[in-house]
């Protein structure tokens, strides 16, 4: 049984923003975090705003300069989008390795971005795409880079009267390599122990774009900026890759939990960053 709560079911975005502005509830998207948290006593809210009827938040558009995903789009809808594997290979891989059939059909990208979990699987791939999120309140919208959106464990820059309405990014450079690896206890329906995404582009035999994002190894998913700086303008040799992976690992602050020890997370971060960087370097053209 869920604890008793009140629920409003707006049909349009302005209606939802009005209820949100009045302080009358927290957004409810797929409920795959919210309902287990309510049942487990972690979620104390007793008023919710159901976003499931707001179709204007449920879309994927591929434009020449911008790919946009509405916040209410489900993980399964991203997986089924025929252009996503080409447009954002690491994101496609992340949604393909996400939960099981039923949860993928309910869980939304907005919920994944807003729950603030360090293991949220769409975040590393979106960070290496340099994605931005649109935050909307009754009085208007602002856009915020995803890199900088997370402040601390389950803390984001989003204000309580704002809805995350979409996430968008510019298409990756032709010839770039965009990879994601989810290390978990099982291949299916398991929480990420160590997650790594990289984006590498090459120009004239040198690395022109280097982005690395790590999940489940710190209070938030984060970009390993110091490691990225070491790679830019360089030819990626095994030695350089090793040192960059070390720099990325040094930026992590993993904990022991029931899925893994902190030490295992550190070792696998180092190994996976090495592996993905060399794969991406070979793949990029």
């Amino acid at each position, binding site marked *: 049984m869920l604890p008793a709560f009140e629920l409003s079911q707006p049909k349009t975005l302005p209606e939802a923003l009005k209820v949100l502005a009045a302080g009358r509830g927290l957004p409810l998207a797929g409920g795959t975090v919210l309902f*287990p948290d309510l049942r487990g006593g972690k979620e104390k809210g007793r008023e919710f705003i159901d976003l499931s009827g707001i179709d204007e938040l449920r879309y994927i558009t591929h434009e020449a300069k911008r790919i946009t995903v509405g916040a209410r789009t489900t993980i399964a809808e991203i997986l089924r989008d025929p252009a996503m594997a080409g447009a954002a290979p690491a994101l496609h891989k992340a949604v393909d390795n996400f939960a099981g*059939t039923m949860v993928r*059909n*309910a869980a939304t990208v907005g919920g994944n971005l807003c729950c603030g979990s360090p293991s949220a699987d769409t975040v590393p791939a979106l960070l290496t795409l340099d994605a931005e999120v649109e935050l909307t309140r009754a009085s208007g919208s602002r856009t915020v880079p995803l890199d900088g959106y997370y402040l601390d464990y389950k803390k984001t820059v989003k204000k309580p009267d704002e809805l995350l309405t979409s996430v968008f990014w510019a298409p990756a450079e032709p010839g770039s390599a965009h990879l994601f690896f989810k290390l978990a206890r099982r291949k299916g329906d398991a929480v990420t122990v160590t997650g790594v995404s990289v984006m590498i582009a090459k120009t004239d035999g040198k690395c022109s774009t280097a982005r690395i994002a790590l999940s489940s190894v710190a209070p938030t998913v984060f970009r390993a900026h110091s490691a990225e700086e070491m790679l830019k303008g360089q030819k990626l040799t095994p030695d350089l890759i090793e040192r960059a992976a070390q720099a990325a690992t040094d930026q992590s602050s993993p904990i022991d939990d029931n899925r893994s020890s902190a030490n295992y997370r550190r070792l696998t971060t180092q190994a996976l960053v090495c592996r993905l960087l060399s794969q991406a370097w070979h793949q990029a053209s």
Partner: protein
Amino acid sequence: MSSEKIVTLRVNGDEVKLIAPAHRTLLEALRHVGYVEVKCGCEKGDCGACAVLLDDMAVDSCLTLAWQAEGREVTTIKGIGTPADPDPLQEAFIETGGAQCGYCTPGMIIAARELLNENPNPTLDDIKKGLSGNLCRCTGYTRIFEAVSLAAQEMQKVGETA
């Protein structure tokens, strides 16, 4: 106390009216009016015992509110097939011994139904992945995977002769 509402939906083709407060899950509401073939396991999305099709899409009914089913079509295992007119998946579960205590079976077949609708010729890995949101404490899964594979083959045969 939260207010109650009458929710009108279709279950296995029949129109059903449910009276439910906002926090009533679809799982509780369905079982309350007699659809006890929808099983309650973990109530947090881990086990898949409560899976139903909501407009042809498999969802965990423990993570769906009754209010969210307004105007929609719900299919339980009894809507997939009956003893008199079983689905190929149900026949295959009997054939291979894919059900022991049977508690996980309704959810397994709902998830497998969605898998076969999308991918009529799944590999073993596709089947494992398609059923990764469903737990079974009895069979060790092998016979469940065999059942889904057998059902896929049977359906292909029927497709070829039709």
